[in-house]
């Protein structure tokens, strides 16, 4: 049946901010859906609170609402747009939960909106664990023994029957939040009660343990004609017990015979049919007992998932795109396969390569967090790699992660590791477990021993054993000849790994020149869905080393258009995520459509290894290389492209630190790097040179010094005065940075920091207490500077800019301040020699504008600024890098004809960006929450934007989008540091006036009461009851301390500012973690409190509306035209 004619307008719901378990894979799927629907002539409205997404670019939908994804706001959008249908299966669990809520509240019925892509019944059958199990049993599938429990008593009863260990899975949470395995009764009590709290329906499933079983996933699609295809099978290298998002996974499955695979496929299809997912994709997880072959079905996601994105990239079969087409009425056989163009989508991809996905963790950002891997997902990103065999793909995946290790042998073994200790380590899932496997084998363990300890299938262990044998050969070989080198590369080893074994070759460069001399270079194969059975029209390539002299590379010649190679940003991590992918995608779009080269534009070539992203969609650029972003891998890609045509340049400025770090090496290798030259990048990065730039331009910066000892640091600190900001000289994302307020904490810091980086000195900066931090994104063409936007941080300087909320236009800066910002930015752009983007961070204190940092590259805020100020900065930047001027871009209409982001009209809407933090994801090994305090080290995983006519409304929206709505009534708990007590009076008074009950700790309460604010005193957690009595006030605090009140749900909002260094006091930590676990707003800065009060007021007034971005931006541009006229 062809497309339905009764659907003319579809509302798509996105997935909101990037959080652990829900990342940019939903930008990829949502973007595909929007593209598909619009190409079908369907009007698309979109709701997504995440400004860093491509899908929320105004050109991807007819009406784009950057609004909170809550039933309340989505209803407002439905009311405004009146769509025929709602598509919620491409926006992750967030979208699906919102759709279910809208259905249950009768909103869909009220507005006559049809849910397409999956019906509510099917969603409930798929997600309700007990019903799902019944379904699996009814089609003859196996399931682990289990019981659904709503109380702890039920939990204890079941465990009394089935014994420990058991798995605890809360219902309706995403990414396995709150789930885990209990081995002891203590663990059971703690985890099950937490699970009951985390579940929105207070329900947990307690399940027979399948720990250590083989784990598989199938990605399936079904159309309305009941045709079903399995797009991909995925095998987890880590056996059951580690969340699939945290496992190393492989596609296709490696260790099943056809008989077992087909059994899995049959059960999967039967389950899918019985659950009744009518159209679209779903993912089903299986466990297989390694010795008996018993197979059980674990769970199902009746929607597009993280694994779907992986499967799409792994196979070339675009699940989200096809799902969108199925949702509007097509059947699979009516949809052409994009890659072959001649065959239909009703088939199952055949792979002639192996895909490995590896997770990227960020435990270093959360000191104290348990680094063991469980059924709760903890990774923040992932990398995928393709190779012609498992070890080749694994090696590429390992180096794609860009962690400290870059494949086997690239860091020394942990000190004191023995075979026993290593085998012992293998028993639990951990980051880099396959490194531990290699170490165990190298230390003499057998494949069987490693399998026994880890549960990893012997086939995978044996593959790594092959690498260990190869290592011996490399070490023993008199010379590295072409044959051995070829075999080494074929096993996935990098030049750097070889260099680690053969020091006489003078490092990676020496290995490479030997390899090139011997003619050992990769070929590039194509991902074509069909194992070469049909010709592919989509140049989606990956590298492989072949030993066969008859081997072929498949990169087509292309000489008409010069090529631009865009280096992506690799796996998501804290500090480098979707925002950079956004910029890379814009570069591809902008350069492909550029009027350069006689209107032909450029051929865009994307290099990236993150399967979640839009940039690695084969539709985004003209060519896609799915490759690690190491110098070696990039060099080979450039070589391949140079061999097939002319490379006009490589873009390194848009993908964050990863590609930027390659700039100099690429230039030295004679490869044209476009945009700001590496020498200029160095000017900005090197402390000394940057000081000179500032000096020449007459710009002030906080005074600083460099020290190699505590004495040196102390001298500098005494000199410039406390507080000081201290950090290792080489930092990423604020890593290891701290603000210290006195000598004792300085000494403490140096003691700890030098442990981290013994070779590197420590930088000591004057910390501008209470300054306003300002962030600027600008574009420079060597002649003119275009200010994209000026953002005022809501938290004071000292909180990492990535974690700080900010407003654009700046809400408290005067016109003169903004002019000063403009002049300084221009001076910096010229001083550094920027050609492209520049991000500057300023601190404004006592009317002096200090330059904190300048980064000549795309920043995290580029997408936010582009949306809030209505000009596509990244697209413009890519054009500037290839030689266009700002004047050209204004003339073309890419940039506004007049004005820029620093002179927005008076009535411009206010946009607020709020960071989203993952604290509730992590626990200490003892099971306690980790501290949610903000500081100079970035910890957020994502962001949302709230946009409205005034700051209060915009801030309220940003909070709703990020954490849930601000309260409009109830009780607020206040406990602030002495230095903040004065500033806290007015906001708290306002809350009291608005009808809130105020309670506070004794010290804070005293100040509030003296200011005529009625408040009760609550005991601190570490105070004795007598202490509270002595404070002499009644109220709820008499019986319980603040933690008890928070846990009992009697507090609706917390204001708690920390007491300076050293680190948070235990009490503050307990308060904040309790607030995080209850999911109530917890504000840790004075400025944040003031903003929250404005937001609360706006929420109470209740006049918060929704407006599409298209209308907001059109108003921005027409206002400007008006001004100019």
């Amino acid at each position: 049946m062809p497309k339905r004619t009764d659907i003319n307008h579809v509302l798509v719901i996105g997935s909101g901010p990037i959080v652990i378990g829900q990342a940019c894979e939903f930008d990829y799927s949502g973007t595909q859906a929007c593209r598909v629907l619009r190409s079908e002539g369907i009007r698309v409205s979109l709701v997504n609170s995440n400004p860093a997404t491509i899908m929320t670019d105004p050109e991807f939908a007819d009406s784009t609402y950057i609004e909170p994804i809550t039933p309340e706001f989505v209803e407002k959008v439905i009311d405004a747009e009146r769509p025929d249908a709602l598509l919620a299966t491409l926006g992750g669990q967030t979208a699906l939960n919102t759709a279910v809520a809208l259905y249950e509240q009768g909103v869909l019925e009220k507005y006559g909106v049809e849910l397409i892509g999956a019906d509510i019944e099917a969603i409930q059958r798929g997600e309700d664990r007990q019903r799902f199990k019944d379904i699996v049993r009814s089609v003859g599938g196996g399931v682990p023994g289990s019981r659904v429990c709503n109380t702890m008593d039920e939990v204890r009863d079941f465990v009394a029957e089935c014994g420990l260990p058991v798995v605890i899975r809360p219902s309706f949470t995403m990414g396995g939040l709150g789930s885990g395995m209990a081995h002891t009764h203590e663990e059971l009590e703690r985890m099950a009660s937490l699970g009951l709290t985390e579940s929105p329906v207070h329900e947990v499933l307690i399940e027979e343990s399948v720990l250590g079983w083989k784990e598989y996933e199938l990605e399936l699609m079904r159309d309305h004609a009941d045709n079903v295809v399995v797009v991909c099978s995925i095998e987890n290298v880590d056996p059951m017990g580690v969340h699939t998002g945290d496992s190393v996974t492989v596609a296709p499955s490696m260790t099943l015979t056809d008989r077992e695979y087909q059994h899995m496929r049959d059960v999967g299809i039967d389950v899918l049919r019985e659950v009744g997912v009518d159209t679209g994709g779903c993912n089903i997880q299986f466990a297989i007992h390694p010795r008996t072959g018993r197979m059980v079905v674990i769970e199902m996601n009746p929607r597009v998932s993280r694994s779907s994105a992986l499967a799409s990239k792994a196979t070339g079969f675009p699940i989200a795109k096809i799902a969108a087409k199925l949702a509007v009425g097509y059947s699979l056989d009516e949809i052409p396969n994009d890659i072959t163009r001649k065959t239909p989508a009703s088939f199952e991809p055949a792979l002639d390569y192996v895909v490995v996905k590896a997770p990227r963790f960020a435990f270093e950002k959360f000191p104290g967090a348990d680094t063991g891997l469980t059924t709760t997902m903890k990774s923040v990103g992932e990398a995928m790699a393709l190779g012609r065999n498992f070890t080749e793909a694994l090696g590429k995946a390992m180096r794609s992660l860009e962690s400290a290790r870059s494949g086997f042998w690239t860091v020394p073994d942990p000190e004191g590791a023995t075979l026993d200790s290593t085998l012992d380590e293998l028993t639990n899932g951990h980051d880099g477990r396959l490194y531990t496997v290699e170490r165990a084998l190298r230390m003499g363990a057998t494949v069987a021993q490693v399998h026994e300890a880890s549960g990893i299938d012997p086939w995978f262990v044996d593959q790594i054993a092959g690498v260990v044998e190869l290592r011996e050969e490399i070490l023993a070989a008199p010379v590295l000849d072409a044959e051995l080198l070829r075999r080494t590369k074929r096993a996935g080893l990098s030049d750097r790994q070889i260099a680690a074994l053969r020091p006489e070759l003078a490092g990676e460069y020496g290995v490479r020149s030997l390899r090139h001399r011997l003619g050992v270079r990769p070929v590039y194969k194509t991902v074509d869905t069909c194992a070469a059975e049909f010709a592919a029209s989509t140049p989606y390539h990956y590298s492989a080393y072949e030993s066969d002299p008859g081997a072929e590379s498949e990169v087509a010649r292309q000489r008409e258009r010069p090529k631009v190679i865009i280096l992506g940003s690799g796996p998501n991590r804290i500090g480098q995520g979707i925002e950079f992918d956004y910029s890379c995608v814009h570069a591809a779009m902008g350069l492909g459509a550029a009027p350069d080269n006689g209107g032909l534009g450029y051929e865009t070539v994307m290099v990236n290894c993150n399967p979640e992203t839009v940039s690695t969609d084969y539709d985004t650029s003209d060519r896609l290389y799915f490759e690690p972003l190491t110098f070696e891998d990039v060099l080979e890609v450039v070589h391949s492209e140079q061999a097939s045509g002319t490379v006009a340049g490589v873009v390194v400025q848009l993908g964050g630190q990863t590609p930027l770090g390659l700039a100099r090496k690429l230039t030295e290798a004679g490869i044209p790097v476009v945009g700001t030259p590496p020498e200029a990048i160095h000017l900005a990065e090197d402390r000394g040179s940057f000081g000179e730039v500032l000096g020449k331009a007459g710009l002030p910066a906080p005074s600083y010094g460099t020290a190699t000892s505590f004495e040196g640091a102390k001298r500098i600190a005494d000199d410039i005065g406390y507080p000081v900001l201290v950090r290792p000289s080489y930092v990423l994302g604020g890593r290891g940075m701290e603000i210290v307020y006195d000598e004792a904490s300085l000494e403490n810091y140096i003691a700890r920091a030098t442990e981290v980086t013994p070779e590197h000195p420590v930088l000591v900066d004057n910390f501008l207490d209470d300054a306003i931090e300002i962030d600027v994104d600008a574009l420079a063409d060597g002649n003119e500077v275009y200010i994209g936007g000026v953002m005022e941080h809501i938290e004071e300087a000292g909180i990492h800019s990535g974690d700080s909320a900010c407003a654009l236009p700046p809400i408290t800066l005067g016109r003169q301040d903004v002019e000063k910002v403009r002049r300084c930015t221009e001076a910096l752009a010229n001083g550094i020699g920027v050609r492209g983007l520049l991000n500057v961070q300023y601190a404004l204190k006592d009317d002096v504008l200090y330059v904190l940092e300048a980064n000549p590259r795309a920043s995290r805020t580029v997408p936010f600024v582009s949306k809030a100020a209505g000009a596509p900065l990244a697209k413009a930047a890519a054009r500037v890098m290839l030689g266009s001027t700002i004047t050209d871009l204004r003339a073309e209409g890419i940039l506004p004809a007049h004005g820029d982001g620093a002179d927005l009209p008076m009535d411009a809407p206010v946009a607020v960006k709020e960071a989203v933090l993952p604290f509730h994801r992590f626990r200490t090994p003892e099971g306690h929450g980790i501290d949610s305090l903000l500081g100079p080290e970035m910890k957020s995983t994502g962001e949302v934007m709230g946009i409205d006519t005034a700051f209060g409304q915009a801030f309220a929206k940003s909070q709703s989008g990020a954490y849930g709505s601000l309260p409009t009534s109830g009780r607020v708990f206040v406990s602030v540091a002495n230095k903040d007590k004065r500033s806290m009076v007015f906001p708290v008074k306002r809350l009291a006036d608005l009808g809130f009950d105020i309670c506070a700790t004794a010290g804070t309460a005293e100040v509030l009461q003296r200011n005529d604010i009625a408040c009760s005193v609550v005991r601190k957690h570490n105070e004795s009851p007598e202490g509270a009595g002595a404070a002499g006030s009644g109220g709820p605090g008499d019986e319980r301390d603040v933690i008890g009140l928070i846990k009992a749900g009697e507090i609706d909002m917390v204001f708690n500012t920390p007491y300076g260094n050293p680190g948070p006091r235990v009490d503050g930590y307990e308060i904040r973690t309790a607030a995080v676990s209850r999911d109530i707003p917890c504000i840790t800065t004075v400025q944040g409190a003031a903003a929250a009060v404005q937001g609360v007021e706006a929420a109470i007034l209740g006049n918060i509306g929704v407006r599409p971005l298209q209308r907001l931006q059109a108003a921005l541009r027409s206002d400007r035209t008006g001004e100019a006229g």
Partner: protein
Amino acid sequence: MTAQTPAALVLEDGRIFRGEAFGSEGSCLGEVVFSTGMTGYQETLTDPSYHRQIVVSTAPQIGNTGWNDEDDESQRIWVAGYAVRDPARAPSSWRSTRSLPAEMSRQGVVGISGIDTRAVTRHIRERGAMRAGVFSGAELATDREMIDRVTAGGGMVGADLAGDVTTGEPYVVRARGERRFTVAALDLGIKSNTPRMMAERGIETHVLPLTASLSEVRSLAPDGVFLSNGPGDPATADHATELTKEILGAGIPLFGICFGNQILGRALGRDTYKLPYGHRGVNIPVIDDETGRVAITAQNHGFAVRGEPGERFDTEFGRAMVSHHCANDGAVEGLRLLDTPAFSVQYHPEAAAGPHDAAPLFDSFVRLMSEAR
């Protein structure tokens, strides 16, 4: 690592791929074809339809699950040679009893590993399936000598191979549970799973050599006749085609698969032809022209019946139609007589290896036999 024995895959057009010996050393000649299945090498290697063919697996990692005692589709490995990229160092499966190369060596099957299998596949895709040879160890010779040996061998067009693979003596596969039907199955290269699937449906299968006559078939008083898959050019299968005509004339329900589909086609007066590089895989979409539904099927055929999707035509046994076609290239994938109880498909409802989407065709056969009673 022990030194590997060099080996070469030599194509009749002179293209040579070099790797290492895998399985037995020596040489073999056959038609080189590629199979895109990612699972099921044991079933593929033991499928008689691959007789005289050198199979290239496009899936790069082969042998991971070793070899077991349950998954053979016949008594032996039939492929002439096997070409893979990365053989497993050691197998891993709870059912495995030995490794793939060990079993190949035991049966004297010559293979090659380490070649760029994707390049081979692309070559075949562009130039068509062709004669080839694998040479290793002492059999390795100069390029010219090896190419000469390849071109001296026979091609697949005009090859009558079913006689090589058919059973010498009739045998019976009993129904599981109560016997409801008796079927005479003409063995043109039958796979073990076919009688097994019939047995599950209460069918007792009498597997007959391909030389069986109508009277031999009739002596079983069968409820139906089954034409199996098998190797070679259907244009050479005159006896089977004649027998099929007789069975149609007698009104005995008939079901054919693969080679059997081509035989039925020829019995109905349709021509058969060689596809450029055939259909070999477990992911091939077939559209039922009557319902529009898609089945993902296991296929292994180098020849096809001439016809158009959904085409209806008249035969001496009444009206007939092309009932199924391949969604990829429109090739005929099934035939059905509308006035006589007979149908056939070009693909493998018995799967092994491959998906089970088409298994209900055995139920259709059961229905046909019930209705004919």
